[in-house]
């Protein structure tokens, strides 16, 4: 059965944006319009779209084509729907989609990832060689030693969490006045400690990069990876519902 592979949805998509262009599996791009919304899609035969390099790049390229003209809300890779389901989706979520499109209008998503050496970060982070007795008359047997070790581990984890949150705050401070919205995930237990996505006005991507490059030069303990511009994958309607 032929279904539609959906790339993105917008409220100001023009037919000429996709006219004559192709998408995944070489199928022609079409605009599926319902009310004020339109979805960029292409017909697809099959149960699922294989997650091959070629297909992923094709998905990204089509969204990049639309992003060159306007800011849509991208669907995740591999979204296949039939026309009826797509129509229902657009009708049911029209208000939320329009609100999300309003929030991202004129913007692109930029990304920053930070890796740190968790072992180095935890040095001196609340651990001490001698905890002292659990209480004055502590027998310091195996059970007591076990709990004291757990206390050290918990203190270390708390200290690490605090440092990771400081780092996320530092990133936010550096992007003040530039990031319209942020989506930040902090994971102190991992080496990839911060994954951040920022909604940045078009034309200010270079400023975004420069501000974070400066941070990277100041903090040699951090390894930064910057990316973008992307369609706003991290700023869809679900995010507005959570907020």
């Amino acid at each position, binding site marked *: 059965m032929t279904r539609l592979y959906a790339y993105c949805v917008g409220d100001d998509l023009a037919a000429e944006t996709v006219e004559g*262009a192709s998408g995944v599996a*070489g199928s022609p791009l079409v605009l599926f319009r319902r009310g004020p919304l339109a979805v960029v899609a292409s017909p697809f035969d099959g149960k699922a779209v294989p997650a091959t390099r070629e297909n992923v790049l094709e998905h990204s390229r089509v969204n990049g084509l639309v992003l060159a*003209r306007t800011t849509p809300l991208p669907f995740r890779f591999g979204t296949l729907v039939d026309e009826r389901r797509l129509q229902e989706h657009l009708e049911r979520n029209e208000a939320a989609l329009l609100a999300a499109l309003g929030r991202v209008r004129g913007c692109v998503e930029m990304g920053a990832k930070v890796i740190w050496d968790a072992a180095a970060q935890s040095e001196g982070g609340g651990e001490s060689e001698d905890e002292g007795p*659990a209480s004055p*008359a502590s*027998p310091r047997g195996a*059970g007591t030693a076990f709990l004291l070790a*757990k206390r050290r581990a918990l203190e270390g984890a708390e200290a690490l969490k605090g440092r990771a949150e400081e780092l996320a705050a530092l990133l936010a401070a550096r992007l003040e006045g530039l990031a319209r919205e942020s989506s930040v995930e902090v994971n102190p237990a991992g080496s990839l400690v911060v994954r951040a996505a920022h909604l940045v006005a078009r034309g200010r991507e270079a400023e975004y990069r420069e501000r974070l490059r400066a941070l990277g030069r100041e903090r040699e303990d951090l390894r*930064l990876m*910057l990316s973008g511009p992307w369609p706003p994958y991290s700023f869809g309607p679900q995010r507005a519902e959570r907020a």
Partner: protein
Amino acid sequence: MKKFPPDSPEPVEPEVETEHAAVFAEELRRAADALPERINVDAQSVEQGLAKLVLTLIELVRRLLEKQAVRRMEGGDLSPEQVEELGLALMKLEEKMGELKAQFGLEDEDLNLDLGPVGKLI
């Protein structure tokens, strides 16, 4: 079929910038390796999945018990003997969990839970 319509602006292509490409590539490879290429629905994998789920829940409770025990120890409302006894019980529980994980071929990271805004379990 043309890739782009005539007279259209060039598609926006994201740029990736880092001075530590190898470190990030390794991190991404590790994340990708953790994902199964496909989900097998056979008796063994169902059993493994069930064991993983149950052990994850036990691990959650075990860690909560440990935190609670540390708090009580710090609060000073336990005698040294009670601290020792509680510590031994939790130590045995940790050992037992280790045995069960080994039996089902699970690592600590397999028992992690993404709790959304709260963070990860482990």
